[in-house]
């Protein structure tokens, strides 16, 4: 067997750390190991580093350093944003929250928890194109609505929501606004000022930073509810000794991503469009999510008559690392809630493939993928009873 090159196109799951991020972390593992809460010089050295990192991250997000709270990642930040807003709402007798059907489970499951505590939740339709309609949001806001939570960009189908319009509506109606920007930060311009967001969640490992570290942005003056008690860290809002190496890595990765945002996005967009063009020739396939309002690195397609996990395993054998929204890969019995929410029937949603790019991918890799995917799809269709029925006219094609 010839040496096979690995093509990693699962960057929405996680990314490879950048050299800048690794370099930024290393000194804080062995050399500057102090606890920033310590008064001595070793501790203060660490405290100074965090101050610098916080300022750097704030600059990227267009906010002040005092509005940045370090968390263990995007999920924790989403949890804390929603629970804090709910607590504020409850105090005012407002127990209605609006979100969307295509949010990450970090949001959806937290909302489910709040429902059990007596909150009412309205999930906005994301329509076939995977985009929420601002006018539908405006119509859904009630006098007792305390929070609107809409993700900046979707992790599966890559659609970019009309965040600024949503922020404006929330501001006008006096409702708090949270955006889960885990897939957006470092990939497309994100400004909490332009978004008029009260809360924002991000995760470092989605933009070549380390895993286990993220940020909750909370607008100045908004009281946060603690998820973890036990210390004065993060201005008393998130206990636990700071993960300094990870914070340093995150700040370096974010700075690098923001400095090269436009050129990286242009490069990924070209590869994304070539992939979509090349794979769309597969008969009875469809691209999921709006084609234009879409993350530069996201390709999500369905191929009728096949199942996603088999597709992934066979692509892996060809050196391609991708992901799918099929039930078998989601670890549940249903295919992706996002694909179902945009109206795909179960049997089509099972045959989904997500390719998420980074600027480190190459056009040559795209051409390899464009050659490999149709071969695997054709093989799986040849051994699929559903495909045989479709071809023999016993069933009608859906896509």
């Amino acid at each position, binding site marked *: 067997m010839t040496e096979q090159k690995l093509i990693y196109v699962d960057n929405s799951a996680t990314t490879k750390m950048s050299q800048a991020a690794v370099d930024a972390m290393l000194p804080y593992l062995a050399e500057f190991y102090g606890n920033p809460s310590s008064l001595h010089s070793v501790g203060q050295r660490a405290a100074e580093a965090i101050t610098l990192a916080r300022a750097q991250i704030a600059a990227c997000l267009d906010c002040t350093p005092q509005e940045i709270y370090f968390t263990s990642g995007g999920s924790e930040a989403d949890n804390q944003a929603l629970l804090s807003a709910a607590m504020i709402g409850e105090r005012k007798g407002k127990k209605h929250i609006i979100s969307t059907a295509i949010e990450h489970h970090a949001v959806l499951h937290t909302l489910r928890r709040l429902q059990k505590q007596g909150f009412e939740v309205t999930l906005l339709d994301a329509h076939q194109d995977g985009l929420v309609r601002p006018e539908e949001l405006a119509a859904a806001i009630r006098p007792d609505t305390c929070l609107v939570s809409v993700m900046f960009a979707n992790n599966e189908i890559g659609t970019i929501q009309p965040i600024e319009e949503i922020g404006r509506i929330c501001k006008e109606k006096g409702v708090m606004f949270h955006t889960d920007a885990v897939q957006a930060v470092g990939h497309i311009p994100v400004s909490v000022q332009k978004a008029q967001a009260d809360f924002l969640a991000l995760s470092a490992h989605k933009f070549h930073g380390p895993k286990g570290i993220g940020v909750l942005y909370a607008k100045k003056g908004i009281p946060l509810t603690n998820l973890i008690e036990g210390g004065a860290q993060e201005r008393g809002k998130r206990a636990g000794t700071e993960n300094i190496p990870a914070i340093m890595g995150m700040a370096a990765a974010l700075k690098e991503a923001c400095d090269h945002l436009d050129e990286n996005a242009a490069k990924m967009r070209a590869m994304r469009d070539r992939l979509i063009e090349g794979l769309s020739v597969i008969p009875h396939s469809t691209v999921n999510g709006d084609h234009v309002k879409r993350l530069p690195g996201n390709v999500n397609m369905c191929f009728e008559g096949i199942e996603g996990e088999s597709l992934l*395993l066979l692509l892996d054998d060809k050196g391609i690392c991708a992901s799918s929204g099929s039930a078998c890969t989601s670890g549940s019995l249903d295919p992706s809630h996002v694909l179902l929410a945009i109206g795909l029937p179960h*049997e089509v949603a*099972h045959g989904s493939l997500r390719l998420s790019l980074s600027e480190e991918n190459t056009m040559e890799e795209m051409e390899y993928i464009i050659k490999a995917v149709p071969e695997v799809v054709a093989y799986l269709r040849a051994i*699929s*009873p559903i495909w*045989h029925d479709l071809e023999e006219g016993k069933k009608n094609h859906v896509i």
Partner: protein
Amino acid sequence: MLYSEKVMDHFRNPRNLGTMEDADAVGEVGNAKCGDIMRIYLKIKDDIITDVKFITFGCGSAIASSSMATEMIKGKPVSEALQLSNKAVVEALEGLPAHKLHCSVLAEEAVKAAVKDYYDKNGIAYDKEQFKQGPTCACGDH
């Protein structure tokens, strides 16, 4: 690794893969909505399964389970094929992850459905209790 080497071997190199034009019996189980369908074709002579083929829509373990099941019944008397249990398929595959066990159940039921088709087509009397199917699919909504 999610799967044993045996599962990956049967997934990558499925045995008895394909359709059969002149099959004596065909069994199909599963549901597109759930994400797996198995179809098994049997060629039977003197009550012996002389040839078997399958096609499957589904995940890695569904394809591997079908492949293993066909290998286990090929050359066997029909009555013996009827005794094939999902447990035997799982053991032969050197295990399946817990949430994939239903794939082996599907394989057992596909074999049973094919045998039932053979009995029905040939007017052979059988105990209907033997073919009582549980909920093939774990979705639970149909």
